[in-house]
């Protein structure tokens, strides 16, 4: 009997230890607040580019989490992404002229929506709308502002497949996404080297829903984050005519080579007077002399 009792006591201790370990894991090593969402209300926003923002990404005010991203969608025919934010009821007093901005945690971190309060006396209600937004800044945009490479773009073809010539496709691969405003609208169907023009001919397969893309839109090869995969971004133009199947995108911006950019910085910085920097391979030349 005493033998049996010691089994029971030992087993009880084992069970208590197991549950204590579970409680420790749940409370000390995870954020319970992240998974629990109290009563909340929805706020609509529109962004020109959502970048890598994902559903369930946090919404923060002053860096403190107040809610999460409920949905991200792109309405056919529009070039802005609709983002619905789900914000907890207790943070109900957000002025209507507040600004929603997509930020990145650190250089490689996840993206989140930051809300900066405005000064309006009225507050956003459930289903309300935040009109002022600032989109995700893509690294290429920032770099191209520094470098002054405006990027060329051109006419896209219409409804199904569109061709675009790039002088350098970098690490772009077949099947890579084609994005507009940061939302995927198609994929890269093929990449071929053109034997006469000596550049890369990329065929983009775009969803038929998005048949109202202006024909003076441009295509650029961007990278997701610093070490992410590459994709083709379509930047809509202002032409009243839409792209048609088989059209050619004339204006394109090739993949940026980090080495080239750094080379240009170095050359521009060191030789402000002397214009001896060759257009191509400028970064290779000094290295080759050593």
């Amino acid at each position, binding site marked *: 009997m005493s033998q049996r009792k010691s089994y029971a006591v030992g*087993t009880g201790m*084992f069970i208590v230890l*197991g549950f204590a*370990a*579970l409680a420790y894991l749940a409370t000390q090593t995870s954020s319970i607040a992240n998974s629990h969402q109290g009563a909340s209300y929805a706020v609509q926003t529109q962004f020109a580019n959502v970048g890598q923002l994902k559903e369930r990404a946090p919404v923060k005010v002053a860096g403190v989490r107040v809610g999460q991203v409920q949905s991200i969608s792109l309405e056919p025919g529009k070039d802005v992404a609709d983002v619905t934010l789900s914000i907890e009821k207790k943070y109900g007093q957000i002025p209507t002229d507040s600004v929603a901005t997509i930020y990145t945690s650190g250089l490689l971190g996840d993206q989140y929506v930051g809300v900066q309060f405005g000064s309006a006396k009225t507050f956003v209600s459930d289903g309300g709308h935040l009109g002022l937004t600032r989109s995700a800044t893509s690294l290429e945009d920032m770099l191209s502002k520094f470098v002054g490479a405006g990027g060329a773009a051109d006419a896209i073809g219409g409804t199904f497949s569109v061709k675009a010539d790039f002088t350098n496709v970098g690490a772009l691969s077949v099947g890579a996404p084609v994005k507009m405003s940061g939302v995927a609208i198609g994929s890269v169907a093929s990449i071929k080297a053109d034997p006469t023009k000596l550049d890369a001919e990329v065929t983009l397969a775009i969803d038929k829903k998005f048949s109202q893309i202006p024909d003076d839109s441009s295509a650029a090869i961007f990278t997701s984050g610093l070490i992410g995969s590459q994709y083709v971004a379509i930047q809509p133009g202002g032409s009243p005519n839409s792209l048609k199947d088989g059209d050619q995108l004339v204006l394109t911006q090739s993949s940026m080579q980090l080495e080239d950019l750094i080379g240009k910085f170095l050359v521009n910085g060191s030789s402000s007077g002397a214009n001896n920097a060759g257009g191509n391979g400028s970064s290779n030349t000094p290295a080759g002399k050593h």
Partner: protein
Amino acid sequence: MSAQTGRSNNVVMDSLAQIGHCGLFLLRILASVPRSMRYVRETVRQLWFVGAMSLTIIMTCGLFVGMVLGLQLYHVLAIFGGTSATGSVVALAIYRELGPVVTALLFAGRAGTSITAEIGLMRATDQIAAMEMMAVDPIAYVAAPRFLAGLIAMPLLCCVFCAMGVFGGHLVGVSWLGIDNGTFWSNMTATVDVWQDIVSGVVWKSAAFGAVIALIAVFQGYTTPPTSEGVAYATTRTVVASSIAILALDFVLTAFLM
């Protein structure tokens, strides 16, 4: 096997027959669970043997797995200047994958084999036949308590393993390699999701593994040929079959729970 199932020596047919028998055996165990409640003391005793007695090996192994993860990840993450992420990567790797799988493999080796050998010897020494003679249902008295004990013990052992793993990662990362203590914990709490990682990753997964291991162990013991060779063979099969089942099930469960 062929004698027992009355089938040919065809490997495929034999395996299918084995799986079919195992499934029917599971139904018999589940049907006898209400009856086995009369023998709840037996369940507690089995929980002691398979659970509490496995704590030493689980805690030691958890500690070392966490320590080696901390050491390896620190040096890999240092290449990208991201050593502060060590805590969250150690925790996620243990919760989502290593905790349930390593605990299950250890549990199959430590507890599964002893269940098979014990029931196999009961079968070989006609104790099971004697129970039937005395109108004691051996499924309710022998099989069900061990099955329930495995099902209950695995999630508890896995939680202990994970806690020890995080402690080991902390020991190496913070105490030896000098990652900031606050960074270690705050990165971990920021990335670990309590439902996604702990409840479905640790608890549900390990409960499923516990059920599979206990079922295989009890089934192999219960159907062993009543010879010393037969018991040895059944014990081996428990380890082999459980290991394969755990790793295959791990993929399927991960795909579902993700």
